[in-house]
């Protein structure tokens, strides 16, 4: 006798996976942490009495006190407040750029690997071309162009992150394509073909779930590198414009031994914020992978 009634709820792999995901403690803790980081960054500043811009050199580089829970920076600004504001930018950048490059990389990688031939050659040679262009000069030109176009410095970072994702897809695409190259030979892909499924369905409903694990790893790693690389852009004027802060440039502002040793509150908090975010995304990714793998069902 069929145990699930005929009218049984139709659950997609996604819906079902999510259901199982939140039942895993580690995963729900990670989701909780991410939500916390978001609240911390987006709501936190509303609750705190500082704006993060008040300069007061008399209390510069001050160790944490009751007034300033995480101490003050070189201008006497409240580190906690800056950490929150920085989070807004860093989280947006990290997650948005991760999603963007992930989508581009996955789509192009799957398409190239699946079709092979001319499509593959065009996409992959384009990837080679993009990967051959050195980053720094490109960024310098970008900075010049953006400033020529009178794009306001505050918004440049978003333009740049988009552009970087747009040109940053090759490595991911190549990784994915490599996998697809062997996966597409699997009999079940031939089966999908005989069943007359559309190419899009074959690529994205049949191949995509099988490259999911790889995507999840890449997503974790690229969120972290997105957040950190933003600070590397700063010195070209493409990053977050001071006096605004980001986690990345808060960390790298303490780039000398003295700050490193004596003013730990300058870099430990943004480091920890970054660590929590990355760790949460990573653990979530791990469990997500497990959940997406039917063979891991418990």
């Amino acid at each position, binding site marked *: 006798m069929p145990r699930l009634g005929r009218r049984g709820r139709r659950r997609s792999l996604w819906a079902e996976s999510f259901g199982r995901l939140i039942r895993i403690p580690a995963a729900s803790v990670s989701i909780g942490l991410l939500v916390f980081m978001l609240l911390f960054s987006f709501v936190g500043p509303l609750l705190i009495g500082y704006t993060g811009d008040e300069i007061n050199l008399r209390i510069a580089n001050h160790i944490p006190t009751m007034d300033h829970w995480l101490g003050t920076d070189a201008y006497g600004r409240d580190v906690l407040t800056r950490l929150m504001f920085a989070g807004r930018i860093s989280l947006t950048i990290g997650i948005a750029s991760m999603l963007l490059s992930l989508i581009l990389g996955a789509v192009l990688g799957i398409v190239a690997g699946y079709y092979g031939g001319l499509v593959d050659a065009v996409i992959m040679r384009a990837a080679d071309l993009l990967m051959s262009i050195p980053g720094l000069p490109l960024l310098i030109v970008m900075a010049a162009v953006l400033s020529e176009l009178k794009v306001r*410095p505050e918004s440049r970072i978003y333009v740049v992150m988009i552009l970087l994702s747009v040109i940053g897809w090759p490595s991911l695409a190549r990784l994915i394509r490599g996998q697809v190259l062997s996966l597409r030979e699997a009999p079940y892909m031939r089966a999908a073909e005989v069943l007359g499924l559309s190419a899009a369905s074959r690529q994205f409903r049949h191949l995509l779930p099988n490259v999911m694990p790889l995507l999840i790893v890449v997503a974790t790693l690229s969120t972290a590198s997105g957040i950190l690389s933003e600070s590397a852009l700063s010195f070209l004027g493409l990053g977050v414009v001071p006096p605004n802060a980001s986690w990345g440039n808060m960390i790298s502002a303490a780039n000398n031994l*003295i700050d490193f040793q004596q003013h730990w509150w300058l870099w430990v908090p943004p480091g920890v914020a970054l660590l929590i975010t990355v760790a949460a995304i990573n653990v979530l990714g791990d469990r997500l992978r497990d959940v997406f793998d039917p063979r891991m069902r418990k």
Partner: protein
Amino acid sequence: EPAPDATQNDLSSMKNEFYQATDPGKSPAGASARTDSFVSTISKPGGVFLPGFYDNGWDGNAVQPIFASLVVTNDAGEAEPDLAEKWDVSDDGLTYTFHLRKGLTFSDGSPLTADDVAFTLTLLNDPQYAGGVDFSDIVIAGTDDYRKGSATSLSGITVIDPTTIRIVTEKVNPLALRTLGGPVISKAYYGKGYAKGKLDYLKDLYGKPLGAGPYALDKYVEGQEIDYVANEHYYAGKPSIQRVIFKVISSDSALQNFENGDIDQGGFGSDPATLTELQNLGFANIEARVVPDYGAIWVNNKKPALADTKVRQALYYGLDRQQIVDAKFKGLGQVADVFAAPTQWSYTNDGVTQYPYDPDKAGALLDEAGWKKGSDGIRAKDGEKLKLSYITTKQDDPVIPIAKQTYTDLGIDFVAEVLDANTAFERLYSGDYDLAGFRSNGLSDPNDAVSEFGTDDPNINVTGYKNDEVTKLIKQGVSVFDHDARQKIYTELYQKLSEDPPIILLDYRKSLSAWNARIENGELFTTGNDDAAIALSKLKIAAD
């Protein structure tokens, strides 16, 4: 007329300060083991060890120990004898006569005579010469003929006897002495195979320098270190320390290398925390030295808003410069008020208008100039908002947060941009900026600090500043040689420049130099100073 209420800026702290090592015995074993060598640092040498031919500034430092000059400039910007015992300048300021010391030799023992000086100058004026030494404001007589015509030598150079040489120039220029009296190279060594217009052969000798300095090159390990050995033929006698090493060290880890004894001496920036750290080492002799330069915000006087003196003054009053200096140097700096370094002989703030932080006055000046606050809090004039962009090359430029705050309060829409150096300069030269943060070059002659404001050439005067009185005074400043006469001119010039400020002066600074106390006379030596070679020759290693 100078503002009567301006308090005089007190520069008493802008003096070199020395901190004696408290416990030289703590010197790290690695350093103490080096009984015959002195290790200093260098950043990125390029390996072109021929004065006048290198393009990389660090190579300039690298050749100092090897090549002695006729004349060197000291910290105060005054010329001092080196190979030349003395020199005369004709009354019209065009003819220079150098008298060399007797019996000079190069480090290989070959004699150094006036012929070598003549050869050096000829080489630097060769039509093919592509190096950085610039004679265009001096022009040795006959240069044009030599370069473009058939002349086989520069007519302006006359070797009178082996120790005397006379040089006739075409332009009066107090700075010519430095250029003409630069490092001397050997004709016998470098002149072999020289023919006018053919300099390529020299490239083979870039790595094998021969000079008359206190040290000779021993070996250059690409990207790692430059080793020198004492020159026994040095005119002042063989230096006491047998070997000198310039080690390639990035500023990030210089302190740790010093702590570890890997280097004996180095420069460590301008942070009091570093000073404390150095003091704690015990074995370090430390000097906080006033650096002969100034930091400033360049202002584009060509922009309609900024062409107005009142607006520039308002920007001066409206900026809390003390705060910037405090944030930047934390006590090792001082607000600048004059277009000269405080250690320069020409420095005086007599009668100079001071611009203490005074937002009210700034606001009043802007109102006066017609920039009225709008409903959004931003000043506007004729429908044009007062928006100023600021370009800088440093992400951590303290001007950004502080100016942002004070200028915003003042009703200015202040936007900062961080750019890479070349881009920034390009913007500067093309006049595409409002405000720009830079430091001056190292100053030796008073003219260095002001000359740009006296010309119309947009490639030099990037601010587009124009003030006829100032222009006149700047010209006068370089048309006489007498110190006192010049001092008078500069005093007046500084006053004029402060009343109608072309740019916003920010700071003077001190930087830290430290050396292991086992090195005697270490205070004399600063890498890159014009007299570094002489200083090196005077260093000694203390016997335990």
